[in-house]
Each structure stands twice: as structure tokens, then as C-alpha cells.
């Protein structure tokens, strides 16, 4: 275990930023999101949850795939360059690290998404353990220990010290690059903090949310439940939940005509949008109920069916905090639980 004084963190960031792009939680206009470090950035490591998850470091909200140019009848295609520079995502939480694992299942399965893979190959995750989880958190329900994040480097902010523990080869390489700034430490303070946090976790209302009955084998039973018709009612069909979610991965591919070439880009899309499945001759998910059901069925049934039971939810609680209509996956799970209990 290594350590660095909190007051020396700017020097650490500076050092990392010399050779790599550094993404970390930055406050802009009163909201904290992951952004690129600059010297005058308002870094906020105390923020428990950034509004958006850091998934866009690997799967950006929009990215150009290639550009087409047409001269007379000839088309030429220039693919976008892949990520070829190392970058560091600093301060990512345990739940969001797991979120990236979920994305890996999608983008790194055959056929591999090379754009995503290049970013994964060049990205170094420095995770920060949670000290003060909140009432909207339920990472424990997915087997995540927010006090012991598994990434390239795990860090803990205890009092005025950041403790630093490399866990992978990539993490060790990064540690070597900044070793001048780090000094040896024992882990007693970290252990102490972990125990404290774990005690809090036990007191949080959602942490022990039971996902019993949700798995890849309950497709028809859950799909046909009359509960969906009730649950979806307040849904406004916006994309807030999908866009703040660390695991939602649906995308759209679109063209942008720049006047000197057509850029084909992909951008996040939401299964909640009415035009998501719209085709020239109809829409197979016509009602908001169907779209609402799709999102939760995908996270809790379809995804586990294809990925050895792994849920496509990590309990970060962003949808709990951000849904304009106060709907969320916890309410869905609880509604089914209640229904099951009543029977």
C-alpha cells in the first residue's frame, strides 16, 4: 500500500496529465461529471456519484466512425483513428467499474467492437472506494463491495491521505510513472474506514434489495406479468435513466453531412424513445409499456440469460435520483416482490 497527501493530489494529477489524458470528476456549472483534467479544473473527488457514469470514457455519447467523401460517382471511406494514447480514469467507483465489465460483455464479444476495445486497451482505471454511500445506492445487491473496488489501481481517501494500491500490470506501470509522489503506507487506516463504511452500507435501505426470481429463465413469466401495465404509467418516455446509466449500451448510427464529407457517427440511443424500433413499415414496440418493459427485462432477464446470470445493472442508483417521474429499477423489483408475496 502506498499513499499521497491530499494536498499533493494536484501534483499527482499534473504528473499523470503530462503523458496521458486524465479523466476525473470535475464540477462544471454546479454539476459534477467526468471530464478532462486541466490545471484550472474544479476537481471534486468528494462527489459520490457523477451525474453521468464514466462509461463515456470508453463508449462516448457520440463518436465518429468514419467519413465518406464522394467525388463524382466514387465514394471513399476514411475510418476514424482508434484510440492510441493511454488515458487514466481517476476516481471511478466500484459500481461503475462493474458497469464497464458489463459493457465489456457486449462490446468485446464477437465481433469485437474495435473502437471500444482500443479505448479499453489504452484506458487505466484508478478506482476510488466509497466512504459515504447514500440511500439511493444498492451496489451490494449485485455483489459489489464499494469499499474495495477492483480496478487497475484501487484508492481510498481517508482523512487527508489518499491510499494507493495497484492491482494489475497496468496499475503497476502507472504507479511506477508517479512513484516519486507516493510513499509507503500501512493499510490500518484503510481497514478502519472500510469497516466504518460497511456498517453504513448495512443501514442503507436499498442495499439488501433481493433480486430473487430475476434470472435468464423467467422470460415468459415476467414478460407476461400484468404489473408492467401499472408500473409504466408515470414514465415520460425520456432517456434520462438510459443516459445516466453505467450499463445501458444501446446506440444509433447516424449520418452528419458537414458539407465536405458525410460523417457516420454512433451515438447513445434509448430503448425508451418511441422511434427506437421504428421501421418504414411499423414498430414492433408500439406502446410505452412495451418500451418500459424492454428496458427492465433486458437488464434483469435477457442480459443474464446471455451472460451467465450477470445482471445489466450495478446498483449505482443514478436512475433512482434522476428519473423525472421517480420511477426506477428498485421500484420495479419491489413491485414484483410484493406481487409475489401477495400470491
Amino acid at each position, binding site marked *: 500500500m502506498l499513499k499521497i497527501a491530499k494536498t499533493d493530489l494536484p501534483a499527482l494529477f499534473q504528473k499523470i496529465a503530462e503523458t496521458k489524458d486524465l479523466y476525473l470528476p470535475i464540477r462544471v456549472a454546479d454539476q459534477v461529471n467526468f471530464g478532462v483534467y486541466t490545471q484550472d479544473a474544479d476537481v471534486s473527488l468528494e462527489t459520490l456519484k457523477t451525474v453521468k457514469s464514466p462509461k463515456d470514457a470508453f463508449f462516448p455519447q457520440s463518436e465518429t466512425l468514419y467519413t465518406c467523401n464522394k467525388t463524382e460517382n466514387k465514394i471513399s471511406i476514411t475510418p476514424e483513428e482508434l484510440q492510441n494514447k493511454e488515458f487514466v480514469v481517476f476516481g471511478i467507483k466500484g459500481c461503475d467499474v462493474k458497469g464497464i465489465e458489463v459493457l465489456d460483455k457486449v462490446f468485446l464479444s464477437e465481433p469485437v467492437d474495435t473502437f471500444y476495445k482500443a479505448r479499453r486497451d489504452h484506458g487505466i482505471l484508478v478506482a476510488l472506494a466509497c466512504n459515504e454511500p447514500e440511500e439511493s445506492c444498492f451496489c451490494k445487491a449485485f455483489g459489489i463491495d464499494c469499499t474495495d473496488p477492483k480496478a487497475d489501481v484501487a484508492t481510498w481517501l481517508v482523512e487527508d491521505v489518499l491510499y494507493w494500491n495497484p492491482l494489475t500490470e497496468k496499475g503497476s506501470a502507472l504507479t511506477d510513472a508517479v512513484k516519486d509522489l507516493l510513499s509507503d503506507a500501512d493499510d490500518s487506516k484503510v481497514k478502519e474506514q472500510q469497516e466504518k463504511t460497511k456498517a453504513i452500507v448495512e443501514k442503507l435501505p436499498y442495499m439488501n434489495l433481493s433480486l430473487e426470481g430475476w434470472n435468464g429463465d423467467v422470460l415468459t413469466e415476467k414478460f407476461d406479468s400484468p404489473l408492467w401495465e401499472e408500473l409504466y404509467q408515470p414514465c415520460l418516455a425520456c432517456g434520462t435513466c438510459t443516459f445516466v446509466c453505467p450499463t445501458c449500451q444501446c446506440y444509433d448510427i447516424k449520418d*452528419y453531412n*458537414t*458539407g*465536405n464529407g458525410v*460523417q457516420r457517427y454512433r451515438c447513445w440511443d434509448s430503448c425508451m424513445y418511441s422511434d427506437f424500433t421504428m421501421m418504414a413499415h411499423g414498430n414492433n414496440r408500439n406502446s410505452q409499456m412495451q418500451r418500459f418493459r424492454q428496458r427492465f427485462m433486458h437488464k434483469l432477464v435477457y442480459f443474464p440469460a446471455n451472460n451467465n446470470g450477470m445482471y445489466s445493472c450495478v446498483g449505482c442508483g443514478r436512475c433512482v435520483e434522476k428519473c423525472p417521474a421517480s420511477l426506477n429499477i428498485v421500484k420495479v423489483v419491489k413491485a414484483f416482490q410484493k406481487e409475489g408475496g401477495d400470491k
Partner: protein
Amino acid sequence: MPLNENEFRPKIVAFCCNWCSYAGADLAGSSRLSYPADVKIIKVPCSCRVNPMFILRAFEKGADGVILCGCHPGDCHYSTGNYYARRRMTLLFSMLDYLGIEKGRTRVEWVSAAEGVKFSQTMNEFVEKIRSLGENVRLGDLRCKN
């Protein structure tokens, strides 16, 4: 006016109503009144056909100034179209000011079919104004800039 090669040549989009201003532009042309070639005219059936999205799209795709020309109030071919356009543009321009887009990048001018001289003068003035404002950097899409 001779231009040297490095001088900034603004791109101007002029929406002209079919009945008055487009005819005014025609008259300017046939009377051999000059106006800068940087002005690209888009003919619209009426000034009220221009919705705010047209104006913003023009800026997005690289225009440095956008001007809307229609019949004089009271002379609209469709009786009242330009009155509605007037309110809309008043509000839109005010909003653009509010967002910090330089005043003067947008303009509305009433030009009749007989006002070839006014058309040419207006365009010359407008191009001059945009030239003094310089390139539009605040309301363009970066993807269109290279």
C-alpha cells in the same frame, strides 16, 4: 472593391420572399446594381415561411450572417405573412442576443419588387457589417468548419 486574397469573405445567406424581395434582387441584377457574390439567395414563398430552424441551420452549416427579406408590412402577397414573420424574428433575434451571439449577424429588411437599389444597398451594408464582425464562431458546428 478589390479584395486581397487573405481578406475575410463572409458567407451570407439571404432568405428572400418570392413576391417582393426576390423580384427586387432580380431588378438589382437587371439594373446592373452590384452586390457581393458572397450573398447566397434562397427563395421562399413568403417571409413567414422561414422558421427559426432555417436561420440556425444556416449558421450551423457555416453562414456568417443571415438576412431575411420580405414584402413591406401591408404588402404581403398573402396579406399578413410578414407580420407574423416580424414577431417571430423579433423574438428570435432577441434570443440570439441573449445567448451572446453578436448583434447584427441577423437582420430583417423589407424590400419590394421595385426596390432594386434598396436590395443592393442593403446587401452591401450587411456584408460590410458581417465583415466587421468577422467569422461566425459562436453559432456554427465545428464539424462543418474544416
